[in-house]
């Protein structure tokens, strides 16, 4: 299963990279943002496998984005690669600290506490003039190890860079899912006490998941900041977290690929809906979420699995 999925995933990423120069500019930048957001969704899927939903993933998203923007603003450093890694590291550090606290919580309390933490950051950013207050501020144009692309070339470079980070993350998370710590997710979700009796510290398993999700959130936020070219406190608002949760539920926790496909679909539908029927956008979102929960509770990814299973059964 593992190697075949890796091969397929690798081919998919390659295909996504190869077609880019032939696509219009706006499609590429849209896809860049979609892939950046997919990293956050991937983090949510890591948590969701253990039955945890974070309504505050925007915290890490925002930290990643602001680290990129602030370093650019304060010391004028603009190397995209280093900045994105720093964004991931910063979010990872914060999630490591928060993990000591939040790993004790489950279910709604986990969701609520993460929500509160992200709202704290929102409150701080909105009220701090030196951090741009409600308007936020713009991000420097990134360079890549001395290479300074402009216009379309920049767009493409950023897209390829995002794809590369995504591919690496997908590989890492896939390996994590196959490891023992990753495989413990379902038992933790079903019955923690029994897992404890096996001699495993559930708190540590959950803590690891929080950090993984945090790093992915930070990377996603950093990439999004470069792609959008602007950061503002709304990146930490709870509705931002809500839309990530939305994509995660829509995609389902079944596979790593679901996060990327789900995020691309979401971004495509969003830009279509905002263009055609802006007043119904949230209604479409809500209805899609309801239909998914009621009829495809395992997420859209499970439809593919279901199909494959049916094929395997028939001679």
């Amino acid at each position: 299963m593992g190697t075949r999925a890796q091969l397929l995933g690798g081919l998919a990423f390659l295909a996504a990279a190869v077609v880019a120069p032939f696509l219009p500019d706006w499609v590429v930048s849209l896809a860049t943002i979609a892939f950046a957001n997919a990293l956050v969704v991937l983090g949510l899927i890591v948590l969701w496998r253990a039955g945890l939903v974070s309504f505050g993933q925007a915290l890490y998203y925002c930290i990643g984005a602001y680290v990129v923007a602030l370093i650019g603003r304060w010391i004028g450093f603009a190397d995209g690669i280093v900045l994105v890694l720093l964004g991931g590291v910063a979010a990872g550090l914060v999630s490591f600290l928060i993990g000591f606290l939040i790993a004790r919580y489950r279910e709604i309390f986990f969701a609520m506490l993460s929500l509160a933490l992200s709202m704290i950051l929102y409150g701080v950013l909105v009220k701090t003039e030196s951090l741009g207050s409600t308007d936020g501020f713009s991000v420097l144009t990134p360079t890549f190890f001395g290479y300074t692309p402009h216009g379309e070339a920049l767009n493409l470079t950023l897209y390829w860079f995002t794809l590369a980070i995504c591919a690496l993350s997908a590989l890492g998370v896939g390996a994590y899912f196959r490891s023992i710590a990753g495989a413990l997710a379902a038992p933790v979700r079903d019955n923690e006490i029994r897992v404890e009796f096996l001699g495993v510290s559930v708190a540590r398993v959950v803590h690891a998941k929080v950090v993984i999700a945090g790093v992915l959130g930070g990377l996603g936020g950093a990439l999004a900041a470069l792609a959008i070219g602007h950061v503002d406190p709304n990146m930490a608002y709870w509705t931002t977290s809500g839309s990530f949760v939305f994509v995660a539920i829509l995609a389902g926790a079944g596979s790593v690929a679901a996060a990327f496909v789900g995020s691309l679909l979401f971004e495509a539908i969003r830009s279509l809906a905002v263009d055609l029927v802006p007043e119904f956008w949230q209604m479409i979102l809500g209805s899609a979420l309801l239909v998914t929960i009621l009829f495809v509770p395992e997420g859209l990814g499970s439809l593919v699995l279901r199909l494959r299973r049916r094929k395997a059964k028939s001679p």
Partner: protein
Amino acid sequence: MLLTVLSILTDGLAYAAYLFIIAIGLTLIFGVMKILNVAHGSFYAFGAYGAATAVGIYFNGHDWYAAGGFLFMILVAMAIGLVMGLILERGLLRLVYGKDEVVIVLVTYAVFLILEDMVVLIWGAQSYAAYQPMVAAGSVDAGDLVLSNYDILLVVLAAFLAALAYWALKFTRYGRLLTTVIFDREVAAAFGINVTVVYTVTFLIGAMLGALSGAVMAPKISVTLGIGVEVIVLAFAVVAIGGMGSIEGALVGALIVGICRAAAVHLVPQIELFVIYGVMAIVLIVRPYGLFVRAQPRKI
């Protein structure tokens, strides 16, 4: 100095009253049904818009008593809450009972998103003002402080609701049935309590309280898009501090948040937003499930 302390206390009390009126419906629904109802923000928004419309009709060119306008506004909002609650509980939530608590949160989140756009469809994108009841209520001078009568009215209303909830839960037949369901749904059902009806009635009361909170706030704010989004996280914070499902918890939570926010506004305005969630995080660190929650048995 004394004036600052006094104004922190009075402002805090008024804000706490407002928070409590919002939070009581949310905590009631959670306590009985174990549903963290994100759509409570929509009840609030619909209540506020309904109240603004009602005030507009009542005061437009008429010279009727302002108190009547206040009552009319509340009645309209509660009727809206009743209808919305009925549709939502019977039409949708009934289908998802028994699913994971977190999944039900997402269901109510979906409803919240849909209702956000419904507001635009019904009332349009412009904002409404419904200041008449507040202006008509006037204000009193207490020494150097000027207190709005409307704020005093809100505090009285919050106290009345708290007393009513306490009395209804402890001393009425329905309240005792409710307490049984809160403790253990299955055992209550086994004793012959019609849990389905209890759920519906609870949800309706919660929805009406949500709409009521929007209505009484409408004169104090500009009724505009997105008011539900802000309010729901505030109500979450209050309920989480007090302990989800506990009414006395909601009261204490509202007081804590109200006073802390008022203190922040008067002393260090930069941390106004921060302080609410900061307090929540601190309380949850010390008491993971809130101040007033019974210890839960571990099920193996």
